[in-house]
């Protein structure tokens, strides 16, 4: 009666070999390191067309100068910002990975893209009957964007495209780690990208989810989120390929609230379930977590749900936690990967990130909520969580083993 299933499993752990980022803070890891240490916010106010009217929006826009340089370097993709952003982050990650990539054949290099809307602004232009290049139109389709990016990097191994709302990034990292664990790839490029566009702004504006003054995650007076745009990339490799003690993806999980399409659950139990499963997969107990990078969008319901989930898992001993959305905004499909890059920098620098733009903490928030960055004596185990539309939740455990 049963159908035999053949699988080839290497059981190799996935380690982070290199990172890259392009976001409101600029291009590269140095602007992020600076933001991490200074708790600075890169959110800006700009006029944007939403529907048929020009409105003032506070969001994390990629700096114009960064975009100008990318377009000058690659005129063929000048009107596909999603491609340009992702390539910029991926090239940085490849460079930071170094020579180890040279020893991995193209067929053993996988690629996983995380995005919610890919090059969506090309669709906006098509609807308005504006001129759009064929390549920009092609990259409306997320799978084609993934294929083009994999081709650009010379990855000839498995190519996947994950589009799972705001947990896409963590889900893509999970898929990348799974490709290595299964023995299907020795290295996997995992990239996340999304744009601020009329489409996305109109959507969140119609749901009345945006804070006109900029987001304040976990603040008593929070009223909404701030969007962000950009790309982030992480190169995962088999841990045995790295000589120094690497940062490992040691546990991960996803879950669903089965509650509401656009709103989080009221009890946080779905997110708590994802966290508990990720901890179990990492084979650690909750007290081993040194820091939690929360989803922390700044909407009243999301942040409240997260606080309940953290209480549910950690009881009265919630580890230090913070939200990074005040730094670069909510970058949607890029968020999970960009915020994981920030966690990697935190681990490398023994620094607990703060929560920029926080003024007065929500009374429900545990005292371990970090308003300002804080030096850590030991930072070995970090939990990253994200939640999204459709009741989706994701958790990822990063561990730096003892030397």
């Amino acid at each position: 009666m049963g159908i035999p299933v053949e699988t080839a499993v290497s059981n190799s752990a996935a380690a982070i070999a290199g990172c890259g980022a392009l976001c409101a803070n600029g291009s590269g890891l140095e602007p992020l390191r600076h933001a991490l240490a200074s708790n600075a916010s890169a959110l800006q106010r700009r006029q944007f067309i939403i529907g048929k009217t020009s409105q003032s929006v506070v969001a994390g826009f990629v700096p114009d100068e960064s975009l100008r340089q990318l377009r000058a370097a690659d005129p063929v993709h000048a009107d596909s910002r999603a491609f340009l952003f992702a390539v910029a982050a991926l090239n940085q990650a490849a460079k930071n990975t170094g020579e180890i990539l040279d020893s991995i054949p193209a067929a053993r290099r996988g690629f996983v893209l995380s995005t919610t809307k890919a090059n969506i602004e090309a669709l906006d232009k098509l609807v308005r009957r504006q001129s759009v290049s064929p390549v920009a139109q092609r990259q409306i389709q997320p799978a084609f964007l993934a294929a083009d990016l994999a081709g650009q990097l010379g990855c000839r191994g498995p190519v996947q495209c994950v589009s799972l709302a705001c947990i896409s990034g963590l889900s893509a990292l999970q898929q990348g780690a799974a490709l290595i664990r299964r023995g299907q790839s020795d290295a996997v490029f995992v990239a996340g990208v999304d744009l601020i566009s009329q489409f996305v702004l109109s959507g969140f504006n119609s749901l009345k989810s945006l804070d006109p003054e900029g987001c304040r995650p976990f603040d008593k007076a929070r009223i909404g989120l701030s969007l962000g745009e950009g790309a982030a990339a992480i190169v995962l490799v088999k841990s045995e390929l790295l000589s120094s003690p690497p940062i490992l993806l040691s546990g991960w999980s996803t879950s669903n609230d089965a509650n509401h399409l656009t709103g989080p659950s009221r009890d946080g139990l779905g997110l708590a379930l994802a966290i508990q499963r990720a901890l179990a997969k990492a084979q650690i107990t909750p007290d081993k977590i040194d820091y939690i990078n929360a989803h922390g969008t700044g909407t009243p319901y999301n942040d409240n749900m997260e606080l309940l989930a953290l209480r549910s898992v950690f009881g009265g001993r919630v580890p230090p936690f913070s939200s990074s959305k005040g730094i670069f905004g909510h970058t949607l499909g890029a968020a999970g990967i960009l915020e994981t890059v920030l966690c990697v920098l935190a681990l490398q620098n023994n620094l607990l990130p703060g929560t920029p733009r926080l003024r007065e903490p929500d009374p429900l928030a545990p005292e371990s909520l970090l308003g300002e960055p804080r030096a850590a004596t030991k930072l070995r185990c970090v939990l990253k969580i994200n939640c999204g539309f459709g009741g989706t939740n994701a958790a990822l455990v990063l561990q730096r083993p003892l030397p």
Partner: protein
Amino acid sequence: MNDLVIQAASYLGPEGFGNDLTGLRPWPPPFKQNLSRGELGCLHWSLLSDSDPSRFLRMDLMCRLGFMAAELLAVNFDAMPGVRRDRLGVCVESFTGSLDADIRFAQTPRPSIFAYTLPSTVIGEVCIRFRLKGPVLSLISPVTHGPGAIAEAVEWLRNNDAEMTLCLGIEAMNPSTEHSISLPKNLSPRGWHGAALLLGPPENSPREKPFATGALVDVCRKLCSAPERTC
């Protein structure tokens, strides 16, 4: 885990609908093969389900197809007390994804459409309907639809991340939406259909006789790989 069975399977497309892998029942009139806006509504819902159609009628086409495919499985999860809802996963794969809703939202931004501009929204709808709380994944695939989701489901089951997994392969585009915009050829939709497979170990099967009539890959190809296929 070495043994898996297809515990339930369903398909619906222009040719009809079915859930026994042997043939399809044709849609009753006035159903048209080239699906216009408003089709796949109450009439067809009532053929498949006795639940309240009001939520269904708010959905976009992708969610309707995924929802109907899941409903058509005719699996009573409540009658499976041995299987925990938080151990039931959902994995969806599509090429077209939410493009239909994307185009409609770009033309007329309304909050009721925005919720459906994500290819993963169907996961939320199905999870709410059946109260499934296990792992979730949504893949956009360039050349196939379905088998990638099934491969991931097999991994979840093998790794004990889930006890059972619902796989959905969906392609959805209203011709009226497609004709309202000049889409590049390579973005053109590839027909429309919804297919669902419930995978798990034999001991959890909700059916007296789980499907085990051939290699998994053959069934995947039959159910999910070609919208033009005949059953």
